[in-house]
């Protein structure tokens, strides 16, 4: 299992150069069964990463490019009157796939964004009064531009909360950059990614993660972290219980990916920024949009013991 995860990391790493940590986080997110939000500037490789992730799991996936005129029906599907049979027949939208790559999700209107809401949380969609189950597993990997860019609709907090992790990618380091420039022109490297994991791995991983042991000391640590977000004036509001559960989920998977059957504080610290930053807001920032660097501060202020 470990080897296959490592192989998957390497496989994606060959596409997204020098970003092993981000790749591991993204894998951790999907292995925990959570939805992933990738946020960064244009052209940083968000879509490449998403593509590579989809391919490495060999999942049946669909890419939806979100635009400002996209409507909920464009995603969920519509019923169309069939003249031959004389009945309405449902034409499922692109969402009925195991993995959705929601590209530039914040380019679309809140109405369409919220169409994803039920899908992400419940694994089902309701179209024209009829509830339909989505395939299982069901993942959403969304990419978005930083909100300050023009022509974007910031995701509402309720929507953000449904992503297990939000990761950024960042500029490549000089060595990776050089390699990138040298091989420039080989279009669509994402297509080269081979499948290393499958649906069974996902199920197995989820089962194994559930048995990762969390010692009382570790839970104390997580609780202290959560309490800090609620008590301190540095934060506009505290972490919700769902946020706390998300931290534990990701921590378990991360420990497993590290080859351990027990979680240690370093696991929490590895996943915490990705898991909580989009759920927090700085206390001094009334209508603030992001919790950048807040998690790092949280980690440096709350002691492990």
């Amino acid at each position, binding site marked *: 299992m470990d080897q296959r995860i490592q192989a998957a990391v390497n496989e994606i790493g060959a596409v997204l150069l020098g970003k092993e940590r981000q790749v591991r986080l993204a894998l951790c997110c999907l292995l925990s069964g959570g939805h992933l939000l990738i946020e960064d500037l244009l052209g940083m490789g968000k879509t490449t990463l998403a593509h590579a992730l989809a391919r490495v799991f060999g999942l049946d996936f669909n890419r939806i490019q979100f635009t400002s005129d996209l409507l909920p029906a464009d995603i969920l599907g519509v019923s169309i009157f069939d003249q031959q049979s004389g009945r309405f027949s449902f034409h499922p939208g692109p969402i009925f796939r195991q993995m959705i790559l929601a590209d530039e999700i914040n380019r679309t209107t809140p109405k369409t964004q919220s169409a994803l809401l039920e899908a992400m949380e419940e694994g089902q969609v309701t179209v024209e009064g009829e509830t339909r189950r989505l395939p299982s597993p069901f993942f959403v990997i969304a990419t978005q531009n930083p909100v300050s860019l023009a022509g974007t609709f910031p995701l509402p907090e309720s929507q953000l909360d449904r992503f297990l992790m939000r990761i950024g990618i960042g500029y490549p380091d000089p060595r990776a950059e050089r390699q990138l420039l040298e091989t420039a022109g080989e279009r669509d490297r994402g297509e080269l990614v081979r499948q290393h994991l499958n649906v069974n791995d996902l199920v197995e991983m989820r089962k194994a993660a559930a048995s990762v*042991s969390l*010692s009382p*000391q*570790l839970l104390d640590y997580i609780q202290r972290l959560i309490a800090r977000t609620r008590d301190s*004036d540095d*934060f*506009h*509001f*505290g972490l919700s219980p769902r946020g706390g559960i998300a931290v534990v989920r990701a921590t378990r998977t991360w420990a497993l990916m590290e080859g351990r*059957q*027990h*979680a*240690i*504080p*370093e696991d929490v*610290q590895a996943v915490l920024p990705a898991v909580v930053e989009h759920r927090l*807001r700085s*206390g*001094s920032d*009334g209508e603030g949009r992001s919790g950048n660097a807040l998690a790092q501060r949280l*980690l*440096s*202020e*709350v*002691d*492990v*013991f």
Partner: protein
Amino acid sequence: MDVNYQIPRLALLWVLAALLLVILPGMLRLPLWILLLVLGCMGWRLLIFAGRASYPGKLVKALIVFTALPLTVLQFRTQGVGLDAAVCLLILGVVFKLLEMQYKRDIVIVIVLAYVLTMIGFIYSQTIPSGLHAVLAVAVITGALVSLNRDNARNNFRNNARLAAQLVLQSIPLTLALFILVPRIAPLWTMPLPVPSSTTGVTDEMTPGDISSLGRSAELAFRVSFDGEAPSHDRLYWRGLVLDFFDGRTWHRSGSTFLDYGMIRRYPSENRGVPQGDPVAYDVIMEPTQQTWVYGMQLAEVTAGEIVQDRNYSLHTATPITQRLRYQLRSWSAFHTDLELPRALRSRALQMPEEDSNTQSAALARELRAASADDMDYVTRVLRHYREQPFFYTLNPPLLGEASIDEFLFQTREGFCEHYAGSFVYLMRAVGIPARVVVGYHGGEYNRFEDYTMVYQYNAHAWAEVWFEGEGWVRFDPTGAVAPERISQGVEAVFANQPGFMEDSGFSMMRFRDTQWLNTLRLRLDAIDYAWNRWVVSYDQDLQLEFLEDLFGENARSSLLWALGMSTALIFSVAAFFLLRGGQRQLRDPATRGYLALAADLAAMGLPRRTGEGPLDYCARVSAERPELAESMQSVTMLYVQLCYGEQGVGSEQLRQEFRMTLQTLRLRVLSRARRAGLVAVSAFSRQR
């Protein structure tokens, strides 16, 4: 500046509440239209917030200001540029500011002004309730500040109130230290305080009926605490003014430069009294009277306070007493005063009214004098006359006509102390014996809770002083001849059931003094008030020095700044300790304790564990910095992680043992030689046990 800034609703409500709280107590002193203006401005502000009204335009603002300004001037024109007018203008300024409060900085100005208004309250009142009110006001204003600056989901009434209360409570130790230790500097200028027109207490003239009307009042006159044993009740003659001019009906002070404070200051009178024996020292806190004289026991010497003594041994202040006044005296009970009576004083002490219709009295005086051997015998005969004739001591004497002395001595024969003192002095003067009336207080109630004596207005008294060759002035109290219990037990004992006594005091607690627990409660409350006045309100440079000398001995003055710095540092370090410690620390398991001890050892080596650094990260850092420790550090860390975070059941006794051993070895390597020896000793000791 953010043009879209909206003052938060909660902050606005807090500010309005704070302003109301600060302004309302002062409202009693201010005219009604100002109250209406204040409420009007607050209402307008609320309407602005609700979107029902707009901010006033330039014209309206100008109109309001230029109407209110002349109105204020008009209102206070009789008092000139006084404190009231200034306070009034400040209040108006604050409430007008409410109307143009748009940005955060405006509301901050209002909040700061509210703090200033709280301080101004102390100019008017320095009682315990006003102190508590100020603390409450500060808490509410702080609440407004918290609510203005806290911009998140925790911004609700309860959280803000709690934080404000916390801040106020936390500031108390520092406040106390500053109060006690900051050098007291005399004010550079004095505030022209408005003088209430009505005076209280004993006045500087005495007409029959004056003092008995004081008997209706149970208000406090002054409080005295003696150094050591208090003198017995019958010796508590609180001497006030000497009244030596009689116009046939009323006794006055004879006008004289003797009585001018400045003159006495510049030319202190000679011919002081000759004290005998040991003095008793005492400390007086006097209620405001709006008068310029104070009380003490004859023969007094001023030991502290801005007080002078005039030629008649009365005590004076420079300005009317508008606030509680504290002074210290010492008095001798045995003394001689004015063994040589100057001619001017003698003629004053013999003055008789120009149109004297008290013929019967004069005749009585001559008759009694003729029967007496000498002046002293005559005095005894006069006193016996009061005692043996049917004279009554009463709080409700009948009114007297033109020849008041005659009417009293021969017809009504019912009187209060002023009747007895006045007629007695008249009888002395009628036969050429120098005598004068003295007004003041007699007696007082002892409060055992704080060891002091309370003197009330109903303790007001009048008595006489007669001058004898070779003796000087001698005090005689003709009231004592009529009602001896008045002198020995006090006026309360005599009049407790007489109508009129303490009548003006309504439901004063004094009236329930017979109920044991109520009386105890009354004495306790008064004791608290007294302690407050003695130690807080009148805490000045002298008291501060005295207090510090008690603490630090002789060179208190030089240690003052030292003490100030130390206590401030102490308070801040206690605060810092609690802040940095980061709140609660629960008891840890032995493994973590051992691990943290190792971290402490490594910190001594210059490799401290960072806050929030996990064991593996720390191990990696230590290994990188100190490769020679890497191996054992890694094994300790792995064992610790197993123990602390490993799967349940793995933390067996064997693992614990192994961890202890490895830890011990590593610590021994890390430790300095001296501490290593200590650790070996400790572990050897624990092994033996």
